[in-house]
């Protein structure tokens, strides 16, 4: 178990070197959520302690789920997946390694909007819970992205399109732009199926002091989503792997 965890960490380091540690990837990770947010925010009168948690949620969601979907199809095409599979490492460890790299990327880049928030006067009332939320949220969105990457394609563009088709609608139903309290019952029900809802709610609870659900409940639900996505992605990757090789 510990040996496999170490090998997952090796995969994580390899992913960071190859896929994340590149200027365009980092810039894209920061700019895409920022521009999306600005497109919504400009011309509206909203307080920063409402806006920053939403921006933080979008940033975390997009950065943590941006690169993972590309890795399996790319490695299938380059035949490096075959090298990984022929090494003494389980599929679960390979997926965990991919997710860990994404967690590091998602959590570290999401510090940017947080610092912007602090700079414009947003006060963090529960920093420990927010830190936990960062880790669990990042793991959850990364696992979600790993799940999206499971179809046995060797074309990154195909997976990216599928991933965008799922990710963008989720942003609009997750209370990023409209407070959950103001949504009607059907809107709240719809929001409840998105893990992003709970991260944004948790961030609002930790920044503006009020949220729809208690932050601990948000964290627990987020963790449940994370575990569900993680185990489902392992199962689906195990199933799709023979078609990739």
């Amino acid at each position: 178990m510990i040996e496999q965890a170490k090998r997952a960490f090796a995969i994580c380091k390899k992913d960071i070197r190859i896929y994340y540690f590149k200027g365009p990837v980092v810039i894209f990770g920061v700019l895409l959520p920022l521009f999306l947010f600005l497109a919504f925010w400009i011309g509206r009168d909203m307080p920063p302690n409402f806006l920053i948690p939403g921006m933080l949620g979008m940033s975390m969601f997009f950065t943590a789920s941006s690169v993972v979907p590309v890795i399996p199809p790319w490695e299938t095409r380059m035949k490096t997946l075959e090298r990984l599979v022929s090494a003494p490492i389980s599929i679960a460890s390979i997926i965990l390694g991919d997710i860990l790299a994404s967690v590091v990327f998602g959590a570290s880049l999401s510090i940017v909007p947080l610092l912007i928030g602090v700079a414009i006067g947003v006060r963090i009332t529960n920093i420990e819970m927010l830190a936990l939320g960062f880790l669990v949220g990042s793991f959850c969105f990364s696992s979600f992205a790993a799940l999206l990457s499971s179809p046995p394609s060797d074309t990154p563009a195909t997976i990216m399109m599928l991933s965008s088709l799922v990710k963008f609608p989720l942003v609009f139903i997750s209370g990023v732009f409209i407070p959950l309290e103001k949504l009607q019952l059907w809107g709240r029900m719809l929001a409840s199926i998105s893990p992003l809802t709970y991260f944004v709610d948790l961030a609002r609870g930790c920044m503006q002091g009020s949220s729809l659900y208690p932050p601990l409940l948000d964290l627990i639900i987020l963790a449940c989503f994370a575990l569900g996505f993680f185990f489902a992605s392992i199962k689906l990757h195990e199933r799709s792997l023979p078609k990739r090789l």
Partner: protein
Amino acid sequence: MSEAIVVSNLTKRFGELVAVDHISFKVKRGEFFGFLGPNGAGKTTTIRMLTGVIKPDEGTALVMGYDIERESIKAKQVMGIVPETANAYIDLTVWQNLMFMGELYGIPKEERKRRGESLLRELGLYDRRDFKVKGLSKGMKQRLLLCMALINEPEILFLDEPTVGLDVRSARSIREILQKLNEKGVTIFLTTHNMEEANQLCNRIAVINHGKIAAIDTPERLKRVMKGLQHVEVSFDKPTPLESLAKLPYVNDVRKIGNSIRLYTDSPCDLVCYIVDYVREKKLKLISLEVLNPKLEDVYLKLIEGGKQP
């Protein structure tokens, strides 16, 4: 256990196509085993099953005593693999690729550094250790793949066409390294198209065709037992009609090869006696007479064309 590989009824289907059809064979520890066959015969599919990359549909394979399906991680831990296509990470350097493989095999940091340095020096890549793989020549990439396969000091090494596309010098260097490894006790399972390579390196070879094993034996015995491919090459002082030679006992076929006549036979010794009688009877002078065994290439072609078991 004296066997490095025990394959029993191994089968793989891709839809309607039976790529590997109930093959069974054993490879002894320390053996240099060649696996030959034409394109699409099932060589790569077999090697991929033996290395745990794909799962067989039927049958079992034990590698160094471990069931490749049920004890896959343990089996992979003791093997090294040089695949058909170069699959090192092109965006990583030579050193990073090597260290990454070391980590995947759970080799402690200092040990993998020591082994990595020694392998790169031995295979002439030490000066290129900080170069990205995408900038390496094909021969260097192949040597890197071999380094990556050896970082865990494997007990068994699987190589899928390791010298294809390499220049003569690089191919020879790879062969020498493989020979040295085998001398040190590493079992080697090699697929190749190169008959001369198989002839030089392998203790035994298996020929696979249409997913089935057509023959397994030592190269020399395969050549000897392959009936009809043994021949006697003679030349006389006067032109001699092929028809009369074809009527000699034990002659299967006659061909003119330049100044010589090649007589194909199942029994070269008996045929030589009849040739001597023929020379006396026709008052000819024998210029040369040579008993020749077939080349491995002839055996191979005969096997894959006829699908016969010698």
